[in-house]
């Protein structure tokens, strides 16, 4: 009978076909597959320039961050929604979470497929959406549109002029302006992730950080209502479809004033701390950190008894082996004043449960990281 030969694989193939074995072997000699220390986070670079906002006049806040090769491009565009004027009177304190609003993120992870969003993209978007709401970062009041202007066509100069009730009170009084609806901005964010190397929870950290960063740099424009009668509606057969399109008819007469001098920054909750200063823009919003828990058998102690095993806390999960072999995970958002904004625990692995000691350790690290960010 032919003898079975031992097969050996190079590390990168072992990590793919047997991620748990690969991870155990690394950890038992005190190494992570990505060569970081157990509680070391991967460094994050935040782009300091504001090119995306400056080069696209429908983008009002943006952020580009990089961690290793993983790149996150976050842009915030604006929508406008009509509000019921009856709900306006209550103050933010009375309303609890209802006095705050959030961002509507659409996350796309580039991974060589097209079609509907993956579960991961949907989970990340939804978590980010809810986390920002519950961290009470954006008061509804700071997004409401006050004193919107009116565009008036000047026949002698053949151009439009915009008048605001607060900036041009005299001219504004002369305009026959009947528009009593009230509006508020909606923050629409698009997050594109290239070169996904990190685990889902680590991607959440990056998305959260980039959204907070983009929000802290967000500049809101003034809004004016244009004269609806000025648009000429011409029915033109479009090239692409058989339906007749109406050229010159815009679906809304709400316009954004591109005058950058009138832009004003978004007021975040506890804005004195939250705005960008030397200590960074992350104070009130907090910094998200993620951890995984895994049990390893020490290499020097033979046998499978309880003594030879210990649970290890790993920070910022990255790479194939860690992602598929570590199922017990923690995600913590802490801010500079040591307030915990979010804790999420997933005890996915019966052998490596999240003990109280581990939780304490993770909380300490998350707080320390928020302090130093």
């Amino acid at each position, binding site marked *: 009978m032919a003898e079975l030969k031992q097969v050996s694989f190079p590390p990168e193939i072992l990590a793919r076909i047997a991620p748990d074995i690969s991870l155990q072997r690394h950890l038992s000699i005190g190494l992570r597959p990505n060569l970081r220390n157990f509680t070391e986070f991967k460094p994050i670079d935040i782009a300091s320039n504001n090119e*995306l906002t*400056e*080069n*696209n*006049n*429908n983008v009002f806040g943006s952020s580009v961050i990089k961690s290793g*090769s993983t790149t996150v491009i976050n*842009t915030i*565009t*604006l*929508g*406008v*929604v*009509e509000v019921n004027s009856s709900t306006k009177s209550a103050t933010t304190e009375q309303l609890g979470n209802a006095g705050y609003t959030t961002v*509507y*993120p*659409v996350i796309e992870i*580039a*991974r*060589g497929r*097209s079609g*509907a*969003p993956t579960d991961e993209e*949907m989970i990340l978007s939804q978590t980010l959406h809810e986390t920002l709401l519950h961290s009470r970062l954006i008061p509804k009041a700071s997004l409401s549109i006050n004193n919107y*202007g009116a*565009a008036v066509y000047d026949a002698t100069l053949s151009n*439009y002029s*915009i008048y*605001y009730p607060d900036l041009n009170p005299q001219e504004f009084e002369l305009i026959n302006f009947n528009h009593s609806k009230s509006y508020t901005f*909606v923050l*629409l*964010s*698009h997050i*594109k992730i*290239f*070169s996904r*190397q990190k685990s889902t929870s680590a991607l959440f950290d990056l998305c959260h950080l980039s959204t907070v960063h983009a929000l802290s740099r967000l500049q809101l424009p003034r*809004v*004016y209502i*244009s*004269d*609806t009668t000025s*648009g000429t509606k011409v029915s033109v057969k*479009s*090239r*692409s479809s058989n339906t007749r399109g109406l*050229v010159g*008819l*815009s*679906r*809304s007469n*709400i*316009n*954004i*004033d*591109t*005058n*950058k*001098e*009138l832009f004003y920054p978004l007021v975040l909750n506890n804005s004195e701390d939250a705005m960008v200063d030397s200590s960074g823009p992350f104070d009130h919003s907090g910094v998200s950190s993620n951890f995984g828990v895994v049990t390893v058998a020490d290499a020097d102690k033979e046998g499978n008894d309880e003594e030879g095993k210990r649970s290890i806390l790993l920070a910022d999960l990255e790479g194939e082996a860690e992602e598929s072999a570590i199922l017990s995970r923690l995600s913590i958002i802490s801010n500079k004043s040591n307030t915990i904004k979010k804790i999420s625990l997933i005890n996915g692995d019966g052998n490596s449960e999240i003990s109280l000691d581990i939780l304490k350790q993770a909380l300490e690290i998350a707080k320390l990281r928020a302090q130093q960010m």
Partner: protein
Amino acid sequence: MSDRRRLIGPLNTIIPNIGISSNATEADVFKGPSSATRNEDGLRQFFLKTGIIENANGSAYLEVGGNIIQVSVFGPRPIRGSFVDRASFSVECKFLPYISQPNEQLYNNTTVNAGSTANTGPTNANANGRTGLTNIEQKISSYIETALLPSIVLEKYPKSTIDIFVTILSTESSNSGSTKVDAALLGISNWVLNCSSVALVDSGIELKDVVTSGVATLKNDKLLLDPEVISSGEDNENTLTCVVSFMNLRNDEIVGFWMEGDQSKFEESQVEQLIDGCNNMSRQVRANINSYFTSTLE
């Protein structure tokens, strides 16, 4: 019906028009990137880098003027189902949703805002919720696919797919208001093609030759290579713009040809002139790509 897979905001969200500026003095100033430095051969300098996307088989990143293009190649990947003796090849080119696409008023059926002069706002549709490709994206994708297909040795990869994903991160026409010029659309297609070729080489997929391409404009009988969109007042009158792709080391074989412009009174000699111009540019680009790859070997 609302999209239940994406968070695209409350149902009654209106996307406002990007209007005019209340500050009259800055209204007509073009705020896009300044015109790029041109070399002696008349081409703009470009920045090229490969291999920055780690979860793809090959990738390339290219910046030229205000255009930023990123291409990832995935493949050969196995396909399910019955055996096929050669690889299938597909290209998907997408603009990031907030970027206004060149010539979109013409092809994408977007509306022109009534109260605003600068038509820089793309649409009143929420771009975040867009599924599928726009007409312009489809045009570019199918051009790239047609031009690259002859260069790939598909027989080497049975029962597999090779997919190219192009993401356009920025265009130079996005803020100029000059989105009606053919040079904007053909210019970006040209650079997407060059970038995709480089990404294919980076992926290690067997190729017959590296396809490169050139773009040229003939305006009032004056030939301009690699045109860029600078002023917002440009139009397509008396202008022919053409992008031609070549396999320069296989006897300058033409693998892709796309011409736009005022074609009512054009002559054969003009087309010849354009093709020669594109070929010159293509050779220059090819020389640059070659020297890039030799420099990465060191």
